[in-house]
């Protein structure tokens, strides 16, 4: 059962199917030609030996005619023992009434074979005999020539076997040659598959079709068509995201500028306070829109990845955030190596780290410490958290999930952006709470990158 299933699985290869089909056709045509050759040889052999029987008959007729009177008693001619086939060839001379006057002695009693004029085939027991009978011109004697069929059969079999054997001997060679040719031709497909596997997800360059066999070119054309369609939809999406950015930011810019103008001109403090409230709301809206745009933008895969010093990028992000840290009375505790090289994209990685640091700064209680370190190849960013609020680490990266600290200014998108960026950069990110600290672990999977 298992063997059949294995065989069926093997048959799922076009190459194997072609090879099996070709071999079957080869074997079938060999069989047909063997049968045909056998027929042809039988016919030729019969013609040849029948002609020889006629020739012998003529010789005996001539001898009989020059002898006046053959002795009446039966004369038996002993075998000469000159050839092993001697017994398979005989003749008999008899008088018109069937009285045998002369016959060769063989293994079989020849009298069991009847005289028949002309060619005939007679079966006696197991043996089959070809006979040729002829009467002398004066009708006194009848001559019967006999040949056992085995004599002819051997020639037929031998000749047929001789033509079939080379055909069968060549079968393994033919199989090998067929397998080699098929593999050679299918290599184009393997090359195409490799090229496809190596293609980056943002590479929409069509495959070149030079010198390809028709079948491969067909697949390539279809692939190129597909790539073109994907590229179009990619461009459409990117254009939409860019247009959305423009359409959203311009009115927001106008809103903010007008509010700032109003605040500048406000007559009294009460008015100013109200307008400042409006400006704060506007700025929150701006941040939300920026986060949404960032989320939309980073749905696109990044530029081709390069080897980057992650430690350097982390230090840059920390430097840029220092004023916010200082304003809240927080401090960094940094344990980064001089170099930490990952295959990554600078813009995306920078955004990812910025969001993580931003998150840490937002939720750390004033006066606490933000730790940034590398441990066993993982980049860790952690901040202190108060013991009151629960953190649901499973739901953290859900869009708009804000936990229980609603008083903290945030849109609930920061960690969704982090998760998405991590995915785009083939990084694993884990969040955990360890005692009084909230830790984000960024793991770089080396195996994944070498693919």
């Amino acid at each position, binding site marked *: 059962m298992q063997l059949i299933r294995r065989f069926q699985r093997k048959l799922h290869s076009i190459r194997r199917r072609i090879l099996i089909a070709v071999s079957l056709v080869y074997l079938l045509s060999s069989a047909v030609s063997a049968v045909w050759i056998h027929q042809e040889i039988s016919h030729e052999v019969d013609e040849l030996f029948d002609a020889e029987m006629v020739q012998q008959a003529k010789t005996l007729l001539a001898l009989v005619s020059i002898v006046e009177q053959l002795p009446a008693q039966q004369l038996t001619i002993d075998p000469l023992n000159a050839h092993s086939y001697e017994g398979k060839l005989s003749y008999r001379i008899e008088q018109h009434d069937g009285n045998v006057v002369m016959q060769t002695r063989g293994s079989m009693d020849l009298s069991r074979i009847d005289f028949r004029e002309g060619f005939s085939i007679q079966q006696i027991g197991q043996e089959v005999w070809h006979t040729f009978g002829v009467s002398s011109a004066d009708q006194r004697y009848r001559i019967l020539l006999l040949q056992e069929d085995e004599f002819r059969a051997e020639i037929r079999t031998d000749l047929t076997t001789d033509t079939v054997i080379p055909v069968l001997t060549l079968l393994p060679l033919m199989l090998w040659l067929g397998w080699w040719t098929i593999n050679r031709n299918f290599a184009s497909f393997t090359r195409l598959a490799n090229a496809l596997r190596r293609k980056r997800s943002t590479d929409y360059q069509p495959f070149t079709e030079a010198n390809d066999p028709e079948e491969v070119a067909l697949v390539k054309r279809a692939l190129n068509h597909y790539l073109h369609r994907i590229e179009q939809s990619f461009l459409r999406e990117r254009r939409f995201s*860019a247009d959305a950015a423009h359409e959203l*930011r311009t009115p927001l810019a*106008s809103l903010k500028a007008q509010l700032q103008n109003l605040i500048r001109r406000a007559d009294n403090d009460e008015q100013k306070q109200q307008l400042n409230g409006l400006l704060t709301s506007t700025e929150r809206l701006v941040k939300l829109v920026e986060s949404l745009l960032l989320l939309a933008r980073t749905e696109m895969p990044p530029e081709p990845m390069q080897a980057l010093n992650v430690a350097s990028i982390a230090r840059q992000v*920390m430097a840029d955030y220092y004023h916010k840290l200082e304003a809240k009375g927080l401090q960094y505790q940094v344990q980064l190596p001089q170099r930490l090289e990952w295959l990554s994209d600078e813009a995306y990685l920078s955004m990812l780290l910025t969001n993580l640091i931003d998150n840490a700064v937002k939720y750390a209680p004033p006066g606490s410490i933000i730790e940034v370190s590398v441990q066993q190849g993982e980049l860790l960013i952690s901040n202190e958290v108060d013991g009151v609020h629960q953190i649901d680490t499973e739901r953290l990266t859900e869009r708009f999930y804000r936990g229980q600290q609603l008083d903290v200014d945030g849109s609930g998108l920061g960690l969704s952006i982090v998760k998405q960026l991590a995915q785009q950069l083939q990084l694993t990110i884990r969040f955990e709470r360890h005692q009084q600290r909230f830790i984000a672990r960024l793991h770089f999977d080396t195996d994944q990158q070498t693919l």
Partner: protein
Amino acid sequence: MELLLIEDDAMLGQAVELGLSERQFVVQWVRTGAAAISELNRQPYDVAVLDLGLPDLDGSRVLASLRKKGQPLPVLILTARDDSREVVKLLDLGADDYMVKPFDMNELAARLRALVRRQRGYASQQLQVGPLTLDDINHQVRVHNQDITLSRREFELLKALMAAPDRVHSRDKLENLVFCNEQQVESNALEVHVHNLRKKLGNKEWIQTIRGVGYRLACN
């Protein structure tokens, strides 16, 4: 200061016109690229604010045409897109600064003033932070009006710190600046230069170390 505002959006144009007028700019506002080009041909301006998404011409085309005619006025680009390659392209085309919408009105005015100041040669290549003065052309550094002598690398280091005082500069960025991407830089080479610079400045508090991150100038 005469300013040409090129902005197609009515509401934003109005707000910026008003806001900048209140901040000592004489604002002429046009809403198309063609109008901007003819306006610039008609009279000279001190500075221009250019929005990228114009209805008739792309903002970059306006900028290119302006620079082709050799008009030297500083141009600040307003953009609503976040494609950093686009920004790099525009800076290469001759833009002097850019801001992403929505921007802060005060910051816009401050940046425009800085552009005009730089254009007029005021404080050209001179940086001043607290008691420190750095002259980039003559390679001079003064502390409380006393000349001090710095090595080339110490000078580059101080210049970078003074260019953005109160900001933290990551050690990697400073290393790149000071050692110009040289290979095989000793891991403590930057520390050595900072140490020497502090000694020469005479006050060790002025250059703060942000442990594990970088340095910051604090001498205001």
